[in-house]
């Protein structure tokens, strides 16, 4: 049985060119980039080359890129680093209800330290309204953090408009209000340019765009007041201590360069497959609905709610057929709560428990989409025939 991977929003396979570029940095080129000798100089150059590749991908300057261990660390660093560096200016932070836990949990931690957090609602598509951001800004606001695109439902937020609103408000206030975006789901996948977006900080993660796991980066605009998240060394221009993950950083650099080259073609192909899958699922399976925005949507993301059945049981049945997907149902999260993102859209508990996400990537083909369209309706039928909720709702 051919296995079909449609969980690219969770992680992607490392690109073979990325792996090839990384390999020499395990055994041959192993120096510590902080060492002055030739071994160190060699890896220092490799790290700086990767920094350029990543900076070029998002239109940043070299010194504005700080490598981290992950997108999660980049998010923690951005939120706490800005909060503690600017707490004399204010103690108010604005974010949204649909952020990743890597944003929400640092915010909750800051609340316990006396900061005030506003969690903005979203509309039924998952969009944050820039006007709501404007209304939420007070003279104590120091940071706004809104994700560029949501990992579960794929909705792309109006970052440029939000940036404009923040800048106008900040000029009236007379103090800086920093704007951070979690771009873990967008960098390397759609066009991301820090100046065009108008952001001061931006988080990214290599393994979401065919780089290795265990490496990410935070873009920090020149002049930003931020304190380190990890202390104990002068690496990354005193902003992030610890010996650099040279192998991972080299991989992230090459993945960034590949993404720059292939962005347009990858995007076009994914949108084509995505729309075919969405259209097919909604047409073939009655009583399903698309979660997220129909067009302001990540090229890879398909998220639907299937009425009367539960996500994990869909997932397991797909897995029997060799198809890997994901769900917002509580049953796979290790808690009993369904996805906070789907609940923020106003979905019922049943709708949230009945959600399934297919996220596409560069190795998916037309045949893969057709296979899902052939297999999944049968799974739904089987589970619905077992569901007490489906009784009498067949025609609804």
């Amino acid at each position, binding site marked *: 049985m051919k296995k079909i991977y449609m969980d690219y929003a969770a992680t992607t396979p490392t690109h073979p060119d990325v792996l090839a570029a990384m390999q020499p940095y395990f055994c041959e080129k192993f120096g510590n980039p902080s060492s002055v000798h030739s071994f160190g100089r060699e890896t220092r150059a490799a790290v700086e080359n990767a920094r350029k590749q990543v900076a070029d991908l998002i239109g940043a300057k070299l010194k504005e890129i700080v490598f981290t261990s992950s997108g999660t660390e980049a998010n923690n660093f951005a939120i706490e680093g800005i909060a503690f560096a600017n707490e004399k200016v204010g103690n108010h932070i604005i974010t949204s209800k649909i952020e990743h836990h890597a944003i929400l949990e640092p915010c909750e931690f800051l609340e316990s330290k006396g900061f005030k957090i506003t969690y903005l609602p979203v509309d039924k598509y998952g969009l944050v309204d820039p006007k709501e951001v404007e209304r939420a800004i007070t003279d104590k606001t120091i940071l706004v953090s809104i994700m560029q695109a949501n990992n579960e439902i794929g909705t792309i937020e109006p970052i440029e408009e939000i940036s404009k609103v923040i800048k106008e408000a900040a000029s009236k206030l007379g103090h800086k209000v920093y704007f951070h975006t979690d771009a873990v789901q967008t960098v390397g996948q759609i066009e991301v340019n820090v100046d065009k977006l108008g952001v001061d900080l931006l988080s990214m993660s290599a393994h979401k765009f065919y780089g290795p796991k265990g490496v990410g980066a935070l873009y920090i605009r020149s002049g930003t007041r931020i304190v380190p998240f990890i202390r104990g060394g002068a690496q990354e221009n005193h902003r992030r201590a610890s010996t650099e993950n040279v192998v991972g950083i080299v991989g992230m650099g090459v993945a960034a360069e590949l993404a720059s080259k292939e962005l347009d073609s990858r995007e076009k192909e994914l949108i084509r497959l995505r729309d075919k899958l969405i259209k097919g699922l909604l047409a073939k399976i009655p009583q399903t609905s698309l979660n997220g925005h129909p067009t302001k949507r990540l090229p890879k993301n398909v998220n639907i709610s299937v009425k*009367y*059945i*539960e*996500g*994990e*049981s869909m997932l*397991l049945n797909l897995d*029997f057929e060799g198809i890997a997907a994901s769900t917002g*149902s*509580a*049953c*796979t*999260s*290790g*808690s*009993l709560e*369904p996805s906070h993102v789907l609940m923020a859209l106003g979905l*019922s*508990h*049943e709708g949230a*428990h009945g959600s399934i996400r297919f996220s596409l990537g560069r190795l998916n083909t037309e045949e893969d989409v057709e296979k899902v369209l052939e297999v999944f309706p049968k799974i739904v039928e089987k589970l619905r*025939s*077992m*569901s*007490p*909720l489906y*009784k009498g709702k067949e025609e609804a």
Partner: protein
Amino acid sequence: MPEPYSERVMDHFKNPRNVGEIENPDGVGKIGNPVCGDIMEMYIKVKDNVIVDAKFKTFGCGAAIATSSMITEMVKGKTIEDALKISNKAVAEALGGLPPVKMHCSVLGEDALKSAINDYLIKKTGKGLPGWKPRSEEGHHGKH
């Protein structure tokens, strides 16, 4: 992150036994709600105080479906008294164990069975199980 399921859970999930409804059942139990993500309906047929048939319909995760399948297998041929002795732990054990986060599914299974027996007793004697309340509606589901 959740632990993987045992082979027996996967077997009962993949090929669930006793799916469906019983026409003119002697007892029906309905437990759970969409908030917690699991709903079970259990149907029993009773002859001379023995459960001769049991069927179920379940909305829920792999563990919820496997638990429903297993408990309907376990009750068939048992007297009402013996069926009432089946605990959620016994169902979980029969399934080769459940991940800790999924243990509530086995409680739901036990509840669905007791609810069906309660319904049967009310119909038959006018009195249900003394002092019976679904366990799944106390404790951890309260936070919803």
